[in-house]
C-alpha cells in the first residue's frame, strides 16, 4: 500500500515525535509513505482568513504534485486534512474556481485534474489495515491503560466522510485493538482552542481546562491525540491552566502513533516519548510492561 | 460573444403523463424559470416513445429530443420505463450510425415532484445543444415511417 505522505509544517517543528512515530508504525504495517516532494504549507485557517483564492492555490499545488506521483495523499494533521479536502471539494464543485486555479497552476507547468483523495493516517490504519493485521503486530499490549481518545475538531468536521461528525469512534476502536482502555470522553471532538492560544489566551485556556477536567473525571491516565496543534495546546498550556484556575492537572499527552509504537514493542526513544512536556513515564511504567 | 450563443435549439420533449409531465407542470406552478426550448408532447408512458418518432423529429428539424419518464421502479405501468431504457440503447446505436451526436437525445427520470429537476434537465440540455450547434441532418430520406 503506497501513499504520498504530507507531514505538514507542525511536524517539522514542535511535533517531530509525531512524524517519527507515524513513519515507524506505517512501515511496520507495510504502508509505504513517500514524503510529498517539496510540499508547501497547506495554508491552514490563517491563510484562508486573508486570501481565499491563493489559499486554494496552496492546496492545489500539493494536490497537483501528489497527482503526478499517482498516489493518494496521507496526512496526519486534521487541519491539513480539512484544508486540502476543502480545496479538493470546492474546486470540484465550482467551475469558476477550478478554472481560476488551473490557469494559475499552468504558469508553473502544473495541472490538477481532481483525482487525489486526501486521507488521515488514522482512517487508513483502521479502514485499510484493519483489526487483524494490527492485533498481530501487538507484542506489548497496553493492557488497562486508561486513555482519553481526543479527536479535536477537524478530523471529521466539516466533511465527516469516514466517521461521525459529533462522536467519532475510530480512535477508540484502534486503542482497543492495542489492548488499551479508551475512557468515556464526551468532549472528544470539542475544540482545544488551537490558534486562540496565541491570539486570545484566556478563551483558549478555558477550553483546555474543560478537556483536562473531563479526561480526569473519567479516569484517564493520558490523552491520545491525532492532531499536532491539539497536542501542543494540551501539553504546553497545562501550567497556565493550573495557574489561572488553581487546578493541578498533570495529564500526559501522547500521539496515537506513539501508543501504537509502544504496543508494537518499539522503545520510548524510537518513538520520541521522552520529548513530551508532561512526562508519561510514571503512567506508562504503571501500565505497560518493560518500557 | 460568439455566434453560437445566438442559436436557440429546438427540442422535442416526450413526457410521460404521470411523472415527467406532472413534474414539468410543477416547475411552472412553482414559477421556476428555465429556457423555453422544449416543446412537450404528452404520452401516457415513456415506453410509448418509438425510436422512429425520435428519428423523425431529428430528421424534420429538431436539434434535440428529450424523453422523460418516471424513475425506474416508479413506473405507473409497472415497468414501461425499463423497456424505454432498452429501446434507448438501440436508439443510441442508430444515432451513431447516422452520425448524430448522442448528446442530442436524452433520457431522463423526472418524478411528479421533481419540478426543479425538470428545469435543470432542460437548462443543461439547452446549454449543451447551444454548444453543439444546429443539427444539419441530411438524413431525411433514410427515415420514413
Amino acid at each position, binding site marked *: 500500500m503506497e501513499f504520498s505522505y504530507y507531514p505538514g*509544517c507542525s511536524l*517539522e*517543528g*514542535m*511535533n517531530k*515525535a509525531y512524524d517519527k512515530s507515524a513513519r515507524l508504525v506505517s512501515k511496520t504495517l507495510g504502508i509505504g509513505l513517500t514524503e510529498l516532494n*517539496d510540499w*508547501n*504549507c497547506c495554508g*491552514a*485557517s*490563517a*491563510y*484562508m*482568513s*486573508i*486570501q*481565499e*483564492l*491563493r489559499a486554494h*492555490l*496552496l492546496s492545489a*499545488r500539493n494536490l497537483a504534485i501528489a497527482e503526478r506521483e499517482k498516489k493518494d495523499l496521507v496526512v496526519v494533521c486534521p487541519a491539513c486534512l*480539512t484544508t486540502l479536502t476543502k480545496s479538493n471539494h470546492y474546486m470540484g*464543485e*465550482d467551475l*469558476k474556481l*477550478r*478554472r*481560476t486555479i*488551473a*490557469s*494559475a*497552476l*499552468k*504558469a*508553473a507547468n*502544473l*495541472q490538477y*485534474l481532481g483525482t487525489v483523495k486526501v486521507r488521515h493516517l488514522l482512517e487508513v490504519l483502521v479502514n485499510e489495515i484493519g483489526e487483524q493485521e494490527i492485533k498481530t503486530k501487538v507484542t506489548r499490549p497496553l493492557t488497562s491503560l486508561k486513555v482519553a481518545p481526543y479527536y479535536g*475538531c*477537524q478530523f471529521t*468536521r*466539516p466533511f*465527516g466522510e469516514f466517521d461521525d461528525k459529533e462522536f467519532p469512534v475510530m480512535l477508540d476502536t484502534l486503542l482497543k485493538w492495542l489492548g488499551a482502555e479508551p475512557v468515556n470522553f464526551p468532549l472528544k471532538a*470539542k*475544540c482545544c482552542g*488551537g*490558534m*486562540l492560544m*496565541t*491570539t*486570545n489566551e484566556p*478563551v483558549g485556556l478555558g*477550553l483546555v481546562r474543560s478537556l483536562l477536567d473531563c479526561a480526569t473525571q473519567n479516569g484517564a491516565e493520558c490523552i491520545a491525540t491525532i492532531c499536532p496543534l491539539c497536542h501542543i495546546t494540551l501539553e*504546553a498550556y497545562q501550567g497556565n491552566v493550573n495557574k489561572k484556575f488553581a487546578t493541578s492537572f498533570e495529564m500526559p499527552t501522547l500521539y496515537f502513533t506513539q501508543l501504537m509504537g509502544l504496543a508494537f514493542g518499539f522503545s520510548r526513544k524510537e518513538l520520541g516519548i*521522552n*520529548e*513530551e*512536556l508532561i512526562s508519561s513515564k510514571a503512567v506508562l511504567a504503571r501500565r505497560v510492561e518493560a518500557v | 460573444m460568439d455566434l453560437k450563443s445566438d442559436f436557440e435549439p429546438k427540442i422535442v420533449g416526450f413526457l410521460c403523463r404521470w411523472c415527467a409531465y406532472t413534474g414539468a407542470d410543477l416547475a411552472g406552478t412553482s414559477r421556476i424559470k428555465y429556457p423555453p426550448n422544449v416543446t412537450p408532447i404528452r404520452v401516457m408512458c415513456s415506453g410509448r416513445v418509438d425510436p422512429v418518432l425520435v428519428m423523425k423529429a431529428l430528421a424534420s428539424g429538431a436539434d434535440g429530443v428529450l424523453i422523460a419518464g418516471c424513475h425506474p421502479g416508479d413506473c405507473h405501468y409497472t415497468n414501461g420505463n425499463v423497456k424505454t431504457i432498452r429501446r434507448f440503447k438501440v436508439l443510441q446505436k442508430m444515432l451513431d450510425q447516422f452520425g448524430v451526436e448522442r448528446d442530442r437525445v436524452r433520457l431522463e427520470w423526472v418524478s411528479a415532484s421533481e419540478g426543479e429537476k425538470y428545469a435543470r434537465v432542460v437548462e443543461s440540455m439547452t446549454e449543451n445543444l447551444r454548444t453543439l450547434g444546429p443539427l444539419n441532418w441530411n438524413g431525411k430520406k433514410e427515415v420514413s415511417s
Partner: protein
Amino acid sequence: MIGGIYRRDIYPPFSHLRAVIALSEERSERRAHALGNVFLHAVYSIPGGEKIKECIQCGTCSASCPTSYAMDYTPREIIAAFRAGLLERVLRSNTVWLCASCYYCTVRCPSGIKLTDIMYELKRLGVEFGLVQEGAVAPVLSKTFVDMVDKYGRVPEIPLMMTVLLKTNPLRILKMIPHGLKLFLRGRMPFLPHRISGISELQKCSGAMTDALVSGVHAGPVTGEET
C-alpha cells in the same frame, strides 16, 4: 503582499461602492448601505454563501460555538446584523476573529449555512476594508502567517509566534521563555525556516492569478477539463 485576489473579483467588481465606503463618513447611512451591499455580495459569492438568506435565527450556531460566550456578538447575530445593515459594528468587535474553525456551526446548521466559511470571508473583508477590532492579535497573526508562506512556502511555528508577539505584545515573550526552554531542551524548537525549492514556482502561480484577475480575463477551459 499581493493585494486584492478575492473570489468576488471574478464577479462584477463593486468599485463605485468601494469609493462610497472610502469617502463617506463613518456611521453614515450611505456608507452602511454601500458596505452592506458589498459585503452581502461578497458572501454570496463564496460556495454556498447564498444560504445565509435562509437563516431562521435559531441560534444553533451560537450555542454550538465553543467561543461564543466571549464574543461581543454571537454568530447568529452576525446574520441579524447583515439584515439590519449594521454589520460594521460586528466587524469592529471581537466576534469573527474568535472563530476557531471548529465547524460545529457548519455541520449543525439546520439551514445548511456554512458559517465557518462565512467567518473566513468576513475576516478577509475586515482586513481588506480595515474593519477589525483595535489591537486584535488574530489579524496580525494571519497576516504574518501569509507573509511567511509567501516567502518560504512553509511556516515555522516558533518564528511565527515570535514575530506575532513582537508586533503585538513583546512582554509576553518573556513569559514564554520557560516554555521555550523546555521545548528547546527536548529538541523541539527549530529556529530556522525551511524554504521550499518550489517557492518561485508558487510565486509565479500567484502572480499569474493576480494578472488574470486584475486584467479581468475570465479563465476559460483548461487542458484535461471535462466538458
